[in-house]
């Protein structure tokens, strides 16, 4: 008789809805910044409004993420213990602890998201201090803000999956693919949100986002299949309501149907892209629900 997975003998950390929303919104914030930076650096003038929209989304969401994380602590007033040693006030940093690195990354990402946000307001002429527009490319300072913030955006979108894998909980600790899945899903949901908002404002460049999101959805599907395979016998935990939600909510409603709708939208230029984007967002949220709660309940 083969021994059961050792992850089945551990206790759940009780990361529930606040963390689920953080993982979802953090993925969108990081992904949106990355997309904004890519459009800034490689796109043309017609994509500049969408890039600005990306930065307008990224910073407020990052603030919400910080609040969600703080509220989830059992001692919220000690949130700063993540950054400073409480007795010596020296920096608290562990390169081998994803939560420690993630706390710093989120802080730094918030800083760059704030700079890009200010730059966007200035460029949009919603801000009196027009000099702040230099925080946007093509100037050197703007390129620096876009590149460094973009790299941190990648980190914020993906480290949450790595954090889960660096535990001993069932499913989370039984695979090394969660970081990859969350990163792709973060880029996908960010593209979907920007496409949704872009459609409402009839912005140009939305179809480029839909093309990009279609590629992300295919990658996400492949990564999800690899994830299930990598779980081995522990995947049996998904022979439950969680597995059904994964297949119906995440794969069918959140990936396959949007892929078809995007295809139609790109072909005929109609508004089916709106429905596709909304479904992608719902699927991205359900993905976090399934990953987190199926392990919490195991």
């Amino acid at each position, binding site marked *: 008789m083969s021994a*059961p997975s050792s992850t089945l003998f551990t206790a759940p950390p009780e990361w529930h809805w606040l963390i689920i929303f953080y993982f979802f919104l953090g993925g969108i914030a990081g992904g949106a910044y990355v997309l904004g930076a890519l459009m800034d650096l490689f796109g043309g*003038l017609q994509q500049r409004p969408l890039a600005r929209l990306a930065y307008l989304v990224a910073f407020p969401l990052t603030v919400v993420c910080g609040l969600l994380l703080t509220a989830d602590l059992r001692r919220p007033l000690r949130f700063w213990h993540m950054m400073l040693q409480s007795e010596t006030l020296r920096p608290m940093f562990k390169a081998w602890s994803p939560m420690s690195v993630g706390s710093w990354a989120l802080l730094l990402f918030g800083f760059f998201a704030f700079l890009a946000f200010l730059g966007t307001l200035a460029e949009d002429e919603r801000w009196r201090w027009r000099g702040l527009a230099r925080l946007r490319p093509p100037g050197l300072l703007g390129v620096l803000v876009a590149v460094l913030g973009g790299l941190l955006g990648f980190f914020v979108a993906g480290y949450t999956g790595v954090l889960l894998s660096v535990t001993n909980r069932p499913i989370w600790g039984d695979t090394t693919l969660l970081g990859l899945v969350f*990163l792709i899903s973060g880029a996908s949901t960010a593209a979907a949100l920007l496409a949704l908002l872009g459609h409402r404002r009839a912005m140009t460049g939305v179809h480029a986002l839909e093309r990009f999101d279609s590629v992300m959805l295919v990658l996400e599907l492949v990564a999800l299949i690899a994830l299930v395979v990598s779980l081995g016998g522990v995947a049996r935990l998904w022979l439950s309501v969680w597995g059904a939600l994964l297949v119906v909510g995440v794969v069918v409603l959140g990936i396959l149907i949007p892929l078809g709708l995007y295809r139609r939208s790109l072909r005929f230029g109609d508004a089916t892209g709106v429905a596709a984007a909304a479904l992608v967002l719902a699927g991205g949220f359900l993905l976090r629900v399934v990953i987190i709660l199926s392990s919490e309940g195991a």
Partner: protein
Amino acid sequence: MAQAMGFFTDTTICIGCKACEVACKEWNQLPAANGGANTLSGDSYDNTRRLDGIHWRHVKFVEQFTPDRSQGRWLLMSDVCKHCVQAGCLEVCPTGAIIRTEFDTVVIQSDVCNGCRDCIGACPFGVIDINPASGTAQKCTLCYDRLQVGLEPACAKACPTASIQFGPVADLRKRADARVSQLQNAGETRARLYGADDKMLGGLNSFFLLVDRPEVYGLPPDPRLPSRNLKSSSWLSVIGAVVVGVAGLISFRTRGSRA
């Protein structure tokens, strides 16, 4: 550093009296029940059920009975934090609240912990939990305060059968080896040590003598550090970031129309 101290728990002589649980609660001033609410397991004489933030010692009642209860046996084991030489909780703690002491034990500093609960999921044994009274993660300290003044931990002091033995880990290992030999010579061929050598997480400073497979006692057969996944998980994410970046570059680039 003082020499490594720990527990050797011989489950074969545990009588399930729970004196260790009571002594632990008394010394560490842990509440008897969570918020005053007594909860009964309903399917066992063991109503403590598991280690958590207010139960730092737990006597497990493993009840192996046939359906008609004509045959059976009790396996009793006083479970506790293993004070791993390579401790997963200490590894992931982002605040530095979890420290290794001069006795090679692992202690959570309650005044530093902010209740993020990363250590709970990282512990391979499910030992740690939040104490609702403090809002911080808590577990056995191996009575760090008693050790500092030369006293033995409260649970070992209270154990009436010497099922829980306290001392330098090197001495305890010799005693445990002798006890296993004694049991095997007496015909109990299933007797084995769990966590006594350094193959398991560098060695468990709190190790056990069992007479069945570890999973029967609710112990993981192959406990490992959470960081085993760190490198591969990170690299896969980096590869994912490169792929997403390239996909974005191809999707958003404009041919000859840049400003």
